[in-house]
């Protein structure tokens, strides 16, 4: 452990050293039998330029139990969705059910090689096909590809499809249509996806109500070079864009297409369908809305769903169902799509996530999916109501599945959003999303999801109210938080400016 970090406790688990620091010269975790074949000189086996000449200096010398305890102790530093509430706004950190994990581990699915022939992988292909059908029904958009490996990847796939469509529709004139409109409340990945697909970005202002400014949208559309709009709905302020139909009409009349960022679909599933609102293409996050694992690096899955009109442009191969015929496979891989943007991922995407998402959808059923959405919105509104007396809520309208507060009241005492988030750790909760959306100063974006019951919501509200009280009575306590973790407040700026990336003696 480097100097300058305050150790909070004397308990050995939080103070576990680096594996290099555990090293004891000569300690090993194995015992080999005597050599019973003739020894070969190492130079015959490995050319000298591939051999290390520093005698592996610094490599940790540890026993098996050293290694086990090292990693188990470090695992106690974790916060996870199985430990408690994870109210990261915009991230939809919902519970990942054990049943879905079990389904993903069924050997007949888990062990299928991706190059297995069509006729020998009919069950696996049927899973992909059926999940696509469900997602088409949920979004109201019939063309679905499960290839994209994550949300931003699905976004980019959607934008590439828009570009391919415009090129096919307008021919050379499409080169004059290269502007993508993005609201100022959008995720940073939106402009990145647009830029990578060869569009330049124009930002649309939000109104004081936190919604897309229709006048500004009309003004930008009047310029004529608009390829499309990228819109999150509900938006990142947790507000439903109630003018969505009108927004889509304005963009369509200007000759553009509407892409919807599906990050917040947890507020819509089973209630409203983007396809019915006029959206042309959307990505979903199976690792948000459909409960596949999210923390710890996923892997994610970002399916792309689109209208019939855009379907020919989806990535290949498509999975198609053919009429049953004796001796012929029913589910086939169709590569013959001349307008397709091509492949965006090796093989078929992150297949394990598809199994989990299908399991989630089937175990919930239509009613269950709708109830989950209702509970997600109800939970966010319960928190919105519970915290209104202590925290500044910048927008009046009732939130959907997430709610944004600010540090306006606390900052009078010098306590800011970052301090409140750090103090929340002491109460056993993962902090909320902070300083996003960028258009809200000192934003705290809270998304409880449907996975939390009333009791835990009450605990969370009590913790937040207690912190608001501390900010008034004892601001130092909040400013120096966290106090219960293995290390106190870290210098994030120094960590980013002068990172220490490897161990040195």
């Amino acid at each position, binding site marked *: 452990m480097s100097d300058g970090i305050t150790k909070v406790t004397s308990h050995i688990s939080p103070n576990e050293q680096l594996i290099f620091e555990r090293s004891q010269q000569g300690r090993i975790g194995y015992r080999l039998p005597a050599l019973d074949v003739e020894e070969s000189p190492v130079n015959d086996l490995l050319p000298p330029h591939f051999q290390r000449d520093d005698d592996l200096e610094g490599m940790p010398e540890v026993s098996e139990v050293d290694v086990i305890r090292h990693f188990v102790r470090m695992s106690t530093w974790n916060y996870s969705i199985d430990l408690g509430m994870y109210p990261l706004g915009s991230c939809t950190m919902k519970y990942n059910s054990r049943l879905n994990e079990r389904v993903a581990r069924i050997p007949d699915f888990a062990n299928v090689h991706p190059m297995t022939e069509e006729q020998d992988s009919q069950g696996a292909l049927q899973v992909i096909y059926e999940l696509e059908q469900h997602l088409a029904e949920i979004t109201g958009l019939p063309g679905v590809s499960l290839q994209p490996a994550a949300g931003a990847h699905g976004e980019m796939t959607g934008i590439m499809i828009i570009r391919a469509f415009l090129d096919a529709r307008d021919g050379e004139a499409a080169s004059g249509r290269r502007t993508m409109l993005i609201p100022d409340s959008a995720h940073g990945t939106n402009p990145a996806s647009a830029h990578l697909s060869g569009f330049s970005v124009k930002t649309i202002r939000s109104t004081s109500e936190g919604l897309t400014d229709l006048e500004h949208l009309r003004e930008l559309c009047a310029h004529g070079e608009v390829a499309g709009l990228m819109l999150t709905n509900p938006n990142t302020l947790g507000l439903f864009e109630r003018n969505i139909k009108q927004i889509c009409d304005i963009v369509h009349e200007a000759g553009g297409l509407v892409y919807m960022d599906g990050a917040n679909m947890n507020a819509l599933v089973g209630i409203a369908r983007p396809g019915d609102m006029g959206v042309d293409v959307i990505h979903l996050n199976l690792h948000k809305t459909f409960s596949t694992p999210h923390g710890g690096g996923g892997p994610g899955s970002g399916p792309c769903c689109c209208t019939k009109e855009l379907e020919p442009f989806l990535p290949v191969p498509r999975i198609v169902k053919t009429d049953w015929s004796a001796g012929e496979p029913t589910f086939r891989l169709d590569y013959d799509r001349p307008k397709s943007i091509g492949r965006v991922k090796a093989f078929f995407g992150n297949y394990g996530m598809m199994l989990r998402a299908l399991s989630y959808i089937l175990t919930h059923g239509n009613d269950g999916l709708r109830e989950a959405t209702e509970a997600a919105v109800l939970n966010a509104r319960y928190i919105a109501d519970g915290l209104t007396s202590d925290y500044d809520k910048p927008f009046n309208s009732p939130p959907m599945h997430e709610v944004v507060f600010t540090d306006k009241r606390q900052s009078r005492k010098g306590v800011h959003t970052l301090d409140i988030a750090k103090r929340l750790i002491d109460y056993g909760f993962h902090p909320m999303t902070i300083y*996003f959306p*960028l258009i809200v100063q000192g934003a705290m974006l809270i998304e409880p999801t449907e996975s939390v019951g009333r009791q835990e919501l009450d605990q969370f509200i009590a913790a937040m109210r207690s912190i608001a009280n501390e900010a008034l009575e004892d601001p130092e306590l909040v400013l120096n938080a966290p106090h219960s973790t293995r290390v106190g407040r870290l210098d994030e*700026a120094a960590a980013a*400016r002068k990172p220490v990336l490897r161990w040195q003696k």
Partner: protein
Amino acid sequence: MANVPEDLHYSKDHEWVRVEGNEAIIGITDYAQNSLGDVVYVELPKAGDEFSASESFGSVESVKAVSEIFTPVSGVVTSINESLADEPESVNSDPYGAGWMVRMRMSSPGEVDSLLTAAEYEDFTKAESE
């Protein structure tokens, strides 16, 4: 209260411009650095790059967010502040001095007149933080 030097011109995107003959020196304001928090990386253009007014010419990454920076005037970059690569913290500690970002040869120096004065910028930031 944020520091707003009298002799500079300001944009509504929180950049400042110091005019030296036909050249403009550009950086971000004290108010901007304070809102961004600790700056950890500054991405700048290359000398010779050309920009028109309001175009993005780079970005500032802080512990909170990555934000684009926009040139308030049109012109060609003549030099950039190389020292920000190793010491991005200058943007926080000395936004109008060691934290300057680019020097540009202005193509239409008249553009400076449409920028905000120190007093106007101060009113603008007050209104924005309310």
